[in-house]
Structures are given as structure tokens and as C-alpha cells.
């Protein structure tokens, strides 16, 4: 069933994927010239994940959601597929970006620098977190929901900064405690080594993705199309 959904989206949104491909080729080719490729890789990954998340926008634009939801698939299938497709496209975008970065003749990037495991993991974490944060909004409320969600997060961030500044004095005595906790976590990571850190990061990403997926299924099963 997931394969059928994947083929459907590739056939009916082929133009979007093709446009996306050219965009990535251009970004990656340009990024080959800059020093420090990590940021370009992560931005590319997040952009790819966002594009997949917003594929639903085309359904809305063409009033095709009723057709998609009338096909012989369950809503859970649709949600599962969207998460898988998002990750697939994200992973593909990361590898494509990296390959082009090192392959273009004017590249200044070293292969081991581009394919650095830490950068790769960070890029994949960015893909997963983008999908986890955006998908429930898009699946339930459409693309407008994504923008409202992102806007809401911005407002929340601003409120946190303002609130943090306002109560900074009150927190001054606790700041040392927070720093001590931070140092403890860093030293634990250092003593565990990068393997354990990777496992910890992957577990956290898996947990967040699972929670987002469950929320999306719950929302989509209650959505009136």
C-alpha cells in the first residue's frame, strides 16, 4: 500500500520533485565553493523535508484531498506514507547535496569533511525534527496549519526570550545550578564516547517522531475532508 501511495505521489507530483531536484543541484553546486559545508547540507535536508511535508498543498490547491481519502487506503496508511516519504526524500536530498558538493569541478570540499558522520547525523536529525514538527499541522489543517504552527513557535520563542529576560534576576541564583547540569551532561557524553551519543540522539529522534506520528494519526482520523 505504501508503495502505491509513493508511486501516486511521484506520478502526480513529478513536476514538484523535478523542480526540487534542480534546486538541490544548484544549491549543492554553489555550496561546493564555500568553506564549511555542514550548514548547506543541513539547510538542504530541512528544505527537502519541508517540501515533502507541503506536498499536501497541491491536493488542497486542486481540491483533490477528497479523491485521495476516497482511495482504498486507511488514513493511518496515508500518515505512515507521508512520514516515510518525508524521510526518504530527506535522506536522498542529503546524499545528493553531498555528492554534488564534492563532485563539481570547482569543489573546495574534502570527501571526509562532507561525509563527516556528525554532520550526517545532524542533517538527519534536522530532517526528522522538521517532519515531526510540521506534519501534524499540515495533515490536520493543511499548509495554512504549517504556517500557523511555525508562526506559533516563533511567538512562543519570542515570549520565552522576553519572559527569560524579565525573570533573569530571579533566576541568577539558579544559573549556576543549570550550568552544573549542562557540564555534567557534557562530561557524561565525553566519557560515553560518540557511539553512545549517537544512540542517545537516535533514540531521542525516534521518540519525537513516534510521538508526532501518533498525534498525526489521531488528528487525521478525526479530520473531516
Amino acid at each position, binding site marked *: 500500500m505504501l508503495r502505491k501511495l509513493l508511486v*501516486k505521489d511521484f506520478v502526480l507530483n513529478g513536476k514538484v520533485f523535478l523542480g526540487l531536484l534542480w534546486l538541490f543541484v544548484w544549491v549543492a553546486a554553489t555550496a561546493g565553493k564555500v568553506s564549511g559545508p555542514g550548514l548547506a547540507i543541513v539547510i538542504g535536508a530541512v528544505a527537502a523535508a519541508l517540501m515533502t511535508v507541503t506536498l499536501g498543498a497541491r491536493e488542497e490547491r486542486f481540491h483533490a484531498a477528497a479523491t485521495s481519502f476516497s482511495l482504498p487506503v486507511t488514513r493511518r496508511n496515508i500518515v505512515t506514507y507521508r512520514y516515510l516519504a518525508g524521510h526518504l526524500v530527506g535522506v536522498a536530498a542529503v546524499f545528493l547535496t553531498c555528492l554534488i558538493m564534492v563532485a563539481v569541478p570547482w569543489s573546495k570540499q574534502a570527501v571526509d569533511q562532507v561525509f563527516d558522520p556528525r554532520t550526517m547525523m545532524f542533517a538527519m536529525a534536522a530532517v526528522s525534527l522538521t517532519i515531526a514538527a510540521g506534519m501534524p499541522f499540515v495533515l490536520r489543517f493543511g499548509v495554512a496549519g504549517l504556517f500557523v504552527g511555525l508562526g506559533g513557535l516563533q511567538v512562543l520563542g519570542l515570549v520565552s526570550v522576553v519572559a527569560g529576560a524579565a525573570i533573569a534576576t530571579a533566576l541568577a541564583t539558579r544559573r549556576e545550578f543549570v550550568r552544573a547540569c549542562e557540564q555534567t551532561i557534557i562530561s557524561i557524553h565525553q566519557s560515553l564516547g560518540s557511539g553512545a551519543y549517537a544512540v542517545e540522539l537516535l533514540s531521542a529522534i525516534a521518540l519525537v517522531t513516534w510521538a508526532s506520528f501518533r498525534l498525526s494519526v489521531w488528528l487525521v482520523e478525526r479530520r*473531516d475532508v
Partner: protein
Amino acid sequence: MTTDYAIEVTGLRKRFKGFGLKDVTFQLPRGYIGGLIGPNGAGKTTIIKIIMNLVRPDSGSVKVFGLDHRTHEVEVKSRIGFVYDVPGFWGDMSLNAHRRAIGRFYPRWNDATFDRLASEFELPLNKHFNVLSHGVQTKFALVMALSHDADLLIMDEPTAGLDPIFRRELLQRLSTLLQDEGKSVLFSTHITSDLARIADFITLIRNGEVAFSLPKDELLEQWAVARGDASMLRRIDPSLLRGSRRRAFGVEALVSDASAVRNTLGSEVVIDKATLDDVMVLMTAEDRDAA
């Protein structure tokens, strides 16, 4: 599981702001065409959306071929062909692309049938969906619905906005489909003349409620419109009076037993057989007056 019904809708309730379905119950036997009629906003589309699991009811159940439409969603939907009032397909993609993308979901999808129907309906398969007229878009939706050997066709206002020639063509095709292949069809419309041609059962939806659900022949043979002066209404058995409206010359009353009313009122009134249009207009006249 075998059952005699293609669709069994029981006690459906759904509340929206300012509108709601109230205990909607009706059945469509296998191999028949059922028509949902009612004025705009009566709840026909909501009922169809609930059957297709596009809208979640507050309570009630829907069974299609004896199977719950949600717990057996994939099995049920693979046996349904659907045509909505606004056919929703990807506007910047060709009809052929839709066939490739959507056909694979149906175990009984038949490319030969698709090609034959597309040729009969003269569909431009390489053109993008959004450059087609509404009529051709509806034809395409119908071809998609008919190409996977669906046991049940569900169509929401498929004839709205179509020219009379294609409407007749569409209705003829539905009749043929049923005669030849024993399929079931649920068809919502406010163009009652379409249903008078092909439907076997009529369900009238009024203000979110089922006003009646009857075989069409019984309806057209037994129901009548009586025309007379205002005092006529007082002499008609209330259990037979289904609706009325005032006219310049007196009143029109819709009655569910023409011969009983004829026996009671004799030659004082004019009694004509009711058309589906009369039924819908007279049964909803009070709602319109109230509004």
C-alpha cells in the same frame, strides 16, 4: 459475509455549526439505483461523505455490503466507484497520469475498460485536467469510477452543471450498467427528473432528516397532488398529508394515498399523480416558508 443490502445507513448523527444530520436511516438493496433528493443544504453531500468516510459521524453506523465502512475501509472502498460534484483531481497533470497513479490502488482495475470508456466519452487523455470543461471533468471522474469493476457507484450531484445531452447519456449508461452487470448506485441530486428516469428507490432528505425512503414506483403510483380551496386541507386525513403550499387559486396538498383522498374528497378537488419534483417542492415548502 453476504447481505441483501449494498448500503445500510443507521442512525447517523452529525452536528455542524447551524446544521446537523438527525438519525438518518435508510437502505439500498443490492443491484438497485437509489436516489438521494432534497434541496441544497439538506445534508445529501454530508451523508455521502460519511459513507465514504470523508466525514466522521458523531454517532450511527454505515455498512457497505454488510461490512462496517471504517473497520473494513480498504475492502469497502476498493468496491466503490465515486464521482463527486466537484471532481477533485490534480489540475496540472494529464488524465493518463491519473490513470497510472490511481488505477493501481484497485485490484480489479482494467486498462482496457478505461481505454474503451475514454474513447466512448472522447476524453483527451494527454490533456491536463484543469483545461477541461466541467462536463469533461465529470466524464473523466465517471470513467475512473467505472474502470475498476466497482460493485457500488456513489455519485454526488454528478449531473449538476452538465448539458442535457450528456446528462441523458450518463443516465443511460448507468441504467445499462445495472441491467447488464447488477451493480448498485447511490445518486444524489436536486434535479429530480434525472432520478425519475432511472432510480428504483428515492430517499428525501430534509433539514438533515430522512423525510421518507421508498421505492420510486410506489411513490409515483400512490402519491398525488390534490388542488382545491383552503378547506380541503382540514378534510384530508393528517396521516396521508405529506406537505402543502398556498397558491393564488387555493392550496396544493401532497398526499401519500391518492385513492383514499379521492374517495374522501370526491370531485371537489383536482387530483393528479405526483412527480418527484412535486414531492420535493411540496415536502420542503413549509421549510422554505419558515426560512
